[in-house]
């Protein structure tokens, strides 16, 4: 396709190349129809709705894209990808931006979202399964929202929906090994 060969020497294509390579999506295919933003449930909370994320990557507004909270509040609900007439998996582009930010250890504009995912992974690495009470407790501590969701606690306990003790499976060690191996393979890939 002709559009793929356009390289404007006055703009930076670095981020576009990186995200295209990570996501396997053709960012320049986007013709800005706006179906993604129209259907996006999280657009109201985004600095740049999905259409503008795509446009900003196209024209090399790299700092604006990377500083936006859009790819952190993206719900990965996949509506944008399902409706894109250019068949771009936009949710995948958002996911690639987020993975890139995590790898680069960039300071996330949505600290709470990043904290949540980090704790979630730590707990399943340790126990093999999610420990919901631990997730809520660690989240409150590390996000510094100490009293968040406390009002739900009595009902959850009363209804038997929360257990104070984690359920550790026998093979939990194997799970930690999966995490380590993934890290190994990915750092090899990054260095090659």
């Amino acid at each position, binding site marked *: 396709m002709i559009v793929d060969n356009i390289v404007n020497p006055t703009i930076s294509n670095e981020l576009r190349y990186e995200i295209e390579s990570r996501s396997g999506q053709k960012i320049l295919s986007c013709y800005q129809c706006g179906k993604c933003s129209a259907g996006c*449930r*999280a657009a*109201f*909370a985004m600095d740049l709705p999905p259409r503008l994320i795509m446009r900003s990557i196209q024209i090399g507004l790299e700092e604006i894209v990377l500083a936006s909270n859009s790819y952190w*509040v993206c*719900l*990965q*609900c*996949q*509506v944008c*990808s*399902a409706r894109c007439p250019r068949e771009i*998996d936009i949710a995948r582009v958002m*996911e690639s931006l*987020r*993975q890139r930010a*995590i790898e680069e250890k960039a300071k996330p504009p*949505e600290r*709470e*979202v990043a*904290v*949540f*995912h980090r704790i*979630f*992974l730590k707990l*399943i690495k340790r126990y*093999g*399964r*999610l420990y*919901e009470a631990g*997730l*809520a407790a660690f*989240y409150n501590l590390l*996000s510094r929202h100490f009293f*968040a*969701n406390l009002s*739900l606690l009595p*009902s*959850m306990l009363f*209804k*038997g*929906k*929360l*257990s104070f003790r984690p*359920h550790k*499976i*026998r*093979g939990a060690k*194997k*799970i930690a090994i*999966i*995490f380590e*191996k*993934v890290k190994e*393979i*990915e750092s090899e890939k990054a260095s090659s």
Partner: protein
Amino acid sequence: MSELVYSYYPGCSLHSSAKEYDISTRLVCQALGIELRELEEWICCGASSAHTASDLLGLALPAYNLKLAEKADLPVVIPCAMCFSRLKFAIAGLKDDATRNQINMVLEEGLAKEVPVESLLKVLDGKSITIPVKKPLTGLKVACYYGCLLVRPMEVANLDDVENPRMMDELVEMLGAESIDWDFKTECCGAGLPLARPDMVLQLSNQILSQAKSYGADCVAVACPMCHSNLDMQQKRMKSEDGEHLDLPILYFTQLIGLALGISAKELALKKHFINPVPMLKDKGLL
């Protein structure tokens, strides 16, 4: 010995905050002659957090469970929409040679064959299996809410129409209830953000519930523990435009099947919901 035997992958929520989904699933399957054998030592599918951090981690965790299922040599049935989606993503990933090699390296044991993975909704859709309705849910108006991952991405979930799914609607109609036609069937409720961005979850879930209510629904039926927790557990924090609580019960579709099969409200753990559906069901003469 049942004719229909599945490996059962409940997922983490069904062992804690969504116990009533697990309880009603087991009861309904037992009543319909479906044997569920819980996969031993199953692990978390990684939910949205694993693939947020790394593609490979997001595939390796569900693939580990596929390996367990391969050893059990039975098709897998999954009630949770998120777990279902993650295991289906792993199956799709395994079809790519490079990805498959990486997953096999992580697991140290290669996957030899593709294990069929089914959504519980598909297994209990009333078409592949006959549901002998004893107490039809006459007069009950149900808004069937599918959420995201049961239908999207279509090439991964491969379950129903991506914009207007009908499976659950046809099921509740078969049970004698009336399914309402509405716009929010597949609109996201806020997914895994109730801790990090409660403001977003409350706004999105409120929109869903407000329309269901204004279209005359008596309850909302769901097939996902995350959708349930956003719509039920968080509901008392939401108010409709006129400042009232919505007070709209959210039921798992398995609980509706259970009621139609004549299983008691107590056994189906209906009172575990934050919005108690029992008074509404009594009003309708269904309990």
